[in-house]
C-alpha cells in the first residue's frame, strides 16, 4: 500500500498543481491531506475547489479554522495585511473548511498485529502544536500513547522529517512530518510531500514494514511570489517563498 500524504499548501496554486502532477505520475493507492489549504497567498478558492473535485480526504489545519466567525466586508478586502488571505475565501469554501475533521485514524491489522496510523495537523493534542524532529522523545511517546498511535503523520512546521522511537514495550513508533507543499521552511524552496509505503513483513510473518519517502518538486516560485506582491498581502510572504524560511 502506497499512501501519498501532503500538507500546508497555503493557497499556493502553482505549487499545488505541480504536486498533483507529480503524484499523478506515480503509483499511489490512497491520498490524504493534513490541512492548511489557505493563508499566505491568493488562491484559496482554487485549492479548495480542486480538493473537492478530487474528493481528497483532508483534516483541518490552524489556518483553515480561522474562517470561523470571520466577517468580511468590501473594506476588509482592501485592507493591507495577512488577513486578506482569509477574507478572500468564498462562502462555500468557508463551509468546507469548517466541516473538516480534526484527525483521521487508519486502523490496520496486518499479519495479526494492530497498526494505527493517525493523521493530525499539529499534534493530536492541539491543532497548532509543533511536533518537531527534535521534540523530546519521552514527550512524543506520551503523546502517541495517549492517541493510541503507532504512526503519527503531521504537518504544521513545514519541516519534513521521519523519525522512529522505540517505546518502553520495545515497539517502534513512527513519526512523519510531511513538510509543506506551498511554503517550505527548511531552507529548500522546492515543494514537498511524503509517500508512506506499508508492506506485510514477509520475513518474520509478523506485523508490517514501513518506509517513508520525501518527494521534492520544482514549481514556479516567481509566479507564486508575484501574486503576493500584487495583492494586499505583506511582501515578506513572497520573500519567504524564495528563502524557504
Amino acid at each position: 500500500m502506497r499512501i501519498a500524504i501532503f500538507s500546508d499548501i497555503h493557497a499556493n496554486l502553482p505549487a499545488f498543481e505541480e504536486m498533483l502532477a507529480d503524484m499523478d505520475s506515480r503509483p499511489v493507492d490512497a491520498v490524504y491531506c493534513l490541512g492548511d489549504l489557505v493563508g499566505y497567498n491568493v488562491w484559496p478558492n482554487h485549492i479548495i475547489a480542486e480538493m473537492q473535485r478530487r474528493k481528497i480526504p483532508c483534516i483541518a489545519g490552524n489556518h483553515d479554522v480561522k474562517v470561523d466567525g470571520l466577517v468580511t466586508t468590501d473594506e476588509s478586502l482592501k485592507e493591507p495585511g495577512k488577513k486578506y488571505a482569509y477574507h478572500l475565501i468564498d462562502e462555500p469554501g468557508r463551509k468546507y473548511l469548517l466541516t473538516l475533521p480534526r484527525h483521521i485514524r487508519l486502523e490496520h491489522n496486518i499479519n495479526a498485529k494492530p497498526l494505527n496510523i493517525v493523521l493530525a495537523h499539529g499534534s493530536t493534542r492541539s491543532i497548532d502544536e509543533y511536533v518537531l524532529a527534535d521534540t523530546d522523545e519521552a514527550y512524543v511517546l506520551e503523546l502517541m500513547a495517549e492517541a493510541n498511535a503507532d504512526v503519527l503523520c503531521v504537518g504544521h512546521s513545514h519541516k519534513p522529517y521521519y523519525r522512529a522511537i522505540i517505546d518502553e514495550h520495545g515497539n517502534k513508533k513512527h513519526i512523519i512530518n510531511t513538510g509543506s507543499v506551498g511554503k517550505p521552511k527548511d531552507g529548500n524552496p522546492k515543494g514537498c510531500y511524503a509517500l508512506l509505503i506499508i508492506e506485510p513483513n514477509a520475513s518474520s510473518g509478523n506485523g508490517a514494514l514501513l518506509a517513508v519517502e520525501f518527494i521534492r518538486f520544482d514549481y514556479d516560485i516567481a509566479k507564486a511570489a508575484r501574486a503576493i506582491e500584487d495583492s494586499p498581502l505583506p511582501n515578506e510572504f513572497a520573500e519567504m517563498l524564495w528563502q524557504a524560511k
Partner: protein
Amino acid sequence: MKIALFSDIHANLPALEAFFKDVESRNTDAIYCLGDLVGYNIWPNEVIDEIRKRGIPTIAGNYDWGIGRSSDDCGCAYKTDEEKAMGKVSISFTNEIVKDEQRNYLRTLPAHIRLEYQLNEEKFNVLLVHGSPRKVNEYLFEDRDEKSMLRIMTDANADIMCFGHTHQPYHRILNSGTDGNDHFRHAINIGSVGKPKDKDPRGGYVILTINPDSALNNKDSIQVEFVRFDYDIEKAAKAVEDSPLPDGYAEMLRKG
C-alpha cells in the same frame, strides 16, 4: 461537507462505473469505500485498480480479507449447503484470477477508518467499518435490538457509524443520552454498489452531510441520503453466466 460512502462492489465493474458517473454529478467533497471489492463476479482486478487509481481511502471487507491472505474462507455466513457450494466456487475462482499486486493491496487495507470531528467545541466520531467494529463479518441488520446496537456504538466510541456487509441500506437514529440530555447516534448501512439484496436491483450508496452547526443533540443536523442508480445489470449477469461462477449469482443480480 458532503461525504460519499460506498461498499460491496463485489467485482461488478459495470456497477462501479455507473456509480462513479453518478457520484461525479453530485458535488460531494470526499469519498470513502467500506470494502468488499471482490468476489461473485469476474472483474476483481479491474475494480481494485479503478479504486486505487482514484486514491480512494478504502477499508477491508471480509471478502478482501480472505482474498488478501489467499484464504479459501471469506467469512461469509452461508446458510444452505447449496449456498456453501456456490460460495466455494466463487472464492476459489476469485483466488485464481486476482493478481499478486492487487492481492497485496487488499492485504494492507485498514480495518477501520475514524474521522474525529470537533465542531463548536463538541467532539464526535464518524467510524467507518465493513461489518461491525467488533468483527469484519458481523451483520448489523436493521432489526437489531436497540440496546445491542447502542452498546456496539458506545464501546467503539462511534457517534456516527457507517457500515455495509448486509447489502441492505438503512439509517437508524438512537438516543444514548441520559438525564434529558439528548445524544443521538446514527447507525448507517450504506447498501451495496454491485450486489444489492433489498429487492431493488439498482446499485446503492450514501451521501452523509456534516454541517458547520451539526451537533449530537440535534438529530436532524446530520443528513443521510440514500442514492440508487441504474447500471447495465444484464452485462454483469451475463459475465457471471459466461464464467465458471455459478449461474445463481447472475439471477441474484437481476432480482436484487
